[in-house]
Structures are given as C-alpha cells and as structure tokens.
C-alpha cells in the first residue's frame, strides 16, 4: 500500500491501471485534461500505450480498436467532447465492445464554461446516443472513490461487454485528497467472456439465445473470425453478415437484449449508500460531490428532530428505482440537490409516481456547491 496525494483526475487513471487498462486514447479538454496528461506518462511506465488523437471521435474509436484486440481501454472527456462522441458511444454499446469513458462534467450547453463544474449530463448518459441505447453510469463522490469506482467501471465493462461511463464532475477531477493505493496485484480483475470452443465451431460474437446473454467474443488475431458488424442490428446467426430469422426479429431481440443483459445483473451493477432511511419522513437523494451536503443536511435535520434520511446514488444508470422506493417508503418529502435543473429529480418523481411523497429539488447551475443550509431551508419550506 502506498499513500499518495492525488487529484481526482489522477485517481481515475490509477484506478484504470489497477483494473488492467493498458491503452488510453484521448483529446485534451478542460476539466478532464489531467487524465490525458497523467496517462501520457503512466501508460508507458506500465508497458501500455497512450495516444493523443485528433478529436474525441477518434479517441473513442481508437479505444474500440484497441479493445477488440483484448486490451482494456479507456478515454475521458467533458462537455462538448461528450456531446461529440455520442454516436461512437452508441456504436460501442451495440457492437458490444468493452470500453470505459470518464466524463468530468463541466457546466452549460455548447462549449459551456470549461473551468466550471456541473452534473448536467445525467440524461445524456442514457438518452444521448441515438436508437434506445442502454447505459451504465456510475458516479464517484470522493477522490478515493474515483479510484475504486474506475476499477469497478472497467470490470463491469468487461463482464457486460458494454461501455461504462464514469459520470464525474470538474469539482471532483480537480479536487486533491490523500488516497491509500493498494498493491495492484491484489485487485480483482474481470475479463469479457471469450469463446471456449475451437475456431471452427465459433460462429460470431453475437450468438445469444436468451435476452440476458452476454455472448463470448474472440480477440482479434487469436485464430477466430470475429466480425463486429451491427448492421441490421447484429446478425444473431453468425458473423458473416447472414441472418437467422427475420431482420426485424433480430433487431427486436438485440435491442431488448442490450438492456436486459444489464438489467438482469442489477445486483452487480446497482450501487447505493443509505443513511437512516428506515424511519425517514424526509429523504435527501444526491450523487457525486453534492452527496456530502445532503449527508450534512440529514445530520442537521436529525438534530432538529426531523426524521431525515439520505440516499446516495452511486450507480446513476440503470437508475436505482428500487432503492429510491425502499428508502422513500415512509417519506412525505424528498429533496434532490443536484447541479442541474432537476434531471435526477425527474427520475425520482417517476420512481415515486405511486406514492404521496412530494419531490422537490435544490438546483445550482452556477457551479457552486449546494450548501446543507439550502437543503434544510427547502425542507422547512415544503415539510407538511
């Protein structure tokens, strides 16, 4: 174990390396730039590859290219860069190429405010790519968690054969904290399912019978013929462009399977943290850096004899609806503090549609921390 003073952005990198990542392609963009800078050094120290590409599109495509050869690969971006790569993100998801994308959120639309932080891509993570694309997105709250959740992201991307987004914020990327880094050889790494049959019996990377299947895929250059073609959408019958069954049947099966393979592994994917929610009449639901304020607000509310509880969403997508419902079973009021105009609040409202709980937000889009006092004021304003 070594103790290091790390930026959040550096902790992502160390987590990726600990998880076995040996390829990084990126394009500098504030506030994610330190990830590229750090990786341009570290990747070569661990016998990996760093390449700075011509844009974010190229970065994620190079990551896909490296990943299909079996090398775990990561890219990072922010704001407009994340907007730019939505198409590539969807392509990696439908082609089922494992990859991790770290989004160090900035604020505002368009080029936004590069040096300011936001939590404004919650909906983008799920609905950004075209064509009903599923998402796995996890959101760290501290620098230490940035390390551990990046490991988790890489492992999930492998076992699920999908893209995992680390949904972070500039406030976290540029925050420094002391982190105890473990011996990386003790880190549990998972691998994508690979074929166990001889090449002659392998008929492609998309052979699935059940909606919950994650089909095995052979790394390029290992003697198997692997065609990662998703036209039509994914030929279930084989990798040769032929289809078994009707094309529309394949399309329906594949789109549903891309979601179902994730949703059927909720225990593995969905992570939350609960504090005093058993008897809570007021529940604060927060994620990322703003969870800290929600936690403090809960403590202060309890001191005033308000039965307050707190739910931290670590996994944002798939959205932890069950956890929200469980924690809000006795709730009369739910407050959702977030650095956007109510994206998670909308999801909470949806999850609690059948209850009487009132759901309100505390929303900052000026990139300043939401203070516990603001959450408490909101509580007093609305508590019936």
């Amino acid at each position, binding site marked *: 174990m070594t103790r290091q003073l790390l930026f959040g952005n550096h902790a992502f990198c160390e987590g990726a390396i600990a998880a076995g990542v040996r390829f990084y392609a990126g394009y500098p963009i504030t506030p994610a730039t330190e990830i590229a800078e750090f990786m341009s050094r570290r990747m070569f120290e661990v016998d990996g590859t760093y390449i700075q590409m011509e844009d974010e599109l190229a970065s994620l495509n190079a990551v896909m290219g490296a990943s299909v050869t079996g090398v775990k*690969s990561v890219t990072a971006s922010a704001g407009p860069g994340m907007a730019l790569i939505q198409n590539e993100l969807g392509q990696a998801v439908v082609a089922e190429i494992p990859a991790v994308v770290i989004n160090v959120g900035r604020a505002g639309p368009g080029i936004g405010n590069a040096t300011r932080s936001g939590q404004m891509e919650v909906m983008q993570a799920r609905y950004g790519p075209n064509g009903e694309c599923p998402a796995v997105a996890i959101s760290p709250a501290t620098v230490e968690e940035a390390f551990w959740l990046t490991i988790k992201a890489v492992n999930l991307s492998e076992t699920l054969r999908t893209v995992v987004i680390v949904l972070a914020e500039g406030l976290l990327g540029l925050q420094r904290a002391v982190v105890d880094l473990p011996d990386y050889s003790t880190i549990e790494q998972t691998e994508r399912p690979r074929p166990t049959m001889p090449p002659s019996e392998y008929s492609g990377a998309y052979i699935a019978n059940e909606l919950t299947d994650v089909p095995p895929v052979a790394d*390029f250059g290992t003697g198997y013929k692997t065609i990662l073609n998703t036209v039509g959408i994914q030929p279930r019958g084989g990798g040769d462009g032929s289809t078994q069954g009707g094309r529309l049947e394949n399309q329906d099966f594949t789109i549903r399977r891309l979601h179902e393979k994730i949703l059927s592994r909720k225990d593995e994917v969905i992570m939350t943290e609960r504090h005093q929610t058993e008897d809570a009449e007021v529940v604060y639901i927060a994620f990322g850096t703003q969870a800290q304020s929600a936690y403090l607000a809960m403590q202060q509310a309890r001191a005033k004899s308000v039965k307050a509880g707190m739910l931290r969403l670590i996994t944002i997508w798939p959205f932890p609806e069950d956890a929200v419902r469980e924690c809000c079973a006795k709730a009369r009021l739910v407050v959702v503090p977030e650095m956007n105009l109510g994206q998670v609040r909308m999801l909470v409202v949806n999850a609690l549609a059948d209850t009487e709980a009132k759901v309100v937000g505390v929303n900052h889009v000026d990139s300043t921390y939401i203070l516990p006092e603001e959450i408490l004021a909101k509580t007093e304003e609305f508590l019936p």
Partner: protein
Amino acid sequence: MSADAKKNRPDPMTPLDDLIGQYADMPPGNFRYCPGCGLGMAQSALMRAFHRLDLDISQVASAGGSGCYAVMAHYFKSNHVHGSHGRACAVATGMKLANPELTVLTLQGDGDCLAIGGNHFIHAARRNIDITVICFNNFGFGDTGGQLAPTTPKGSVTETSPFGMPEEAFDPCKLAIGAGASFVARSTVAHPVHLTKTLAEAIAWKGFAFVEVLQHCHVLWGRRNGMPEAMDMLNFYREKSAFNTAAISEEECFGSPIYEPDGEQDINFVLGVLHKEQRPELGEELAKLRQRVKGDAS
C-alpha cells in the same frame, strides 16, 4: 531473382476458386454487390494480394464504416470492425497500436475516407502508423443512392449535383502525400494485375500506405454521365489512365478530375506507386519509447 524463387512466387492471377477456400467466407444467398459492380473485382484483387504475400488471414484485421464496400470484409475470413461512418482510420490505429502483430487494413469508400473521415485519414497518414488504407473511389456516395462526394469530378451529374458538380474534387493521392503518407498508389479495377500487385506492395509496406482504387459505379455515376454499362466504365478507366513511367512528370501524376464530355480536357488518371518514402513508424517509435521510460525508471 533465382529461377526457383520465381517459380514459387504465387501467380497474381491464381484462379479465384483456389483462393476462395483459403481467404473467403462466402455466405449462402445473395452476393450484395450490384451486377457488374467494381467491388467484386476489387475483392478478388485483394484476395490475390493476400495470396501473393502468403498472409495468415486470421492475423488480418480490418476496419470500415458505411458504404457499398462495407460488406466486403464480411466475405473474408479475417477479423473486422464495421464501425460508425468514417472512423476506420481511428479504429485501425487503436488495433495496430494494441496488437502490432496484426496486419491492419481499412476498407473505405471515397465518401467514408475523405468526407466524414477526412480528419482521421490525414492524421493517420501524419503518424505513419503501419496500416493500409484502401479507398474504393466510385466518385460518389453509392450506398445512399449516388450523391456527390469530395471525389466527384467537377461537372459530373449526381443525385445532389443535378446541374453538374460545382466544386473541385480532391485528388486523394495528393491529399495523402500532403498529409505525410509514406506510400501512395493508385490503380483501377480495369487493371486487375496491376491492382493486385499494388495492393500487395501497399500491405507489405512498413508504415502508412494508401491505395486509391478507382472502382466504377455504372449504376449511379455512370448512368448519369453517359456510361450506363459496367464495360463503358471499364473502358473509360483504360482510356483515361496512364501508368506512372519515366515519361510522366510528377505534376502530371496529380490533379483534380474534371468531367467535360465535349471538351478536350477529360479525366486523366496516372496509375502506379506515386510516392514512397521510408519514415519512422509510430508503433516502433512507441516501442522504443517504452524501453526508454523503463530505462529511466531502473
């Protein structure tokens, strides 16, 4: 070359049936090219190039995007990523850097490679990464129904240039050289032996190799420009092409094609290897870098 070596060298015109078993994986049912399409000829030339180089097909990896050519890789026994439109050079860069043992190709159309993918193309050329970019140039977007591309000869009619293409076209080879490609060649499907040899030389080249393959689309471009049959266009390539010999000046090798059916200046194509220059290859440079970083650490 000794007589024996000459004898053992695979004949560039090996019968196709022999090659299909070795390299191709033809699906049952329809062959997806239009009748008479140049892509079938390009595909057989590529198979012959594999044969000529005695390549292990399982170590060949390619990347492509959208376009008529996109089905080609599915007919090979190699590995392939059919990714998003235009990004093949970036995918191929990742593949080659992550596994330098692979023989990496991109199969791209002119629209894919030079319009939407132009940025990735020039940067891959600049890096001199050891990949071979094969650009099937049919003067337009075939898969979407014959719209103009950056390679559509000025003056010619397409679905989105009904009054004649008003813009100047790219000379893809000149662009590749300008961007730093270390091997640049042009051939046509009307010259199958030349095409086979050119593709083989490009694939064997250490560094970024670019081959522009003039491949006719008589259905969408030819029909609108007075060449409605496949043979019309094959004859057109034969008549309008010249091989790059000592008699041809460097300036004559390049140019933006102009289509003037009644004018004297018609489209001209100089075929052959137009540029060759040994430069350090990116993958090897990074391997040296790793050694150096390790040396510093110890």
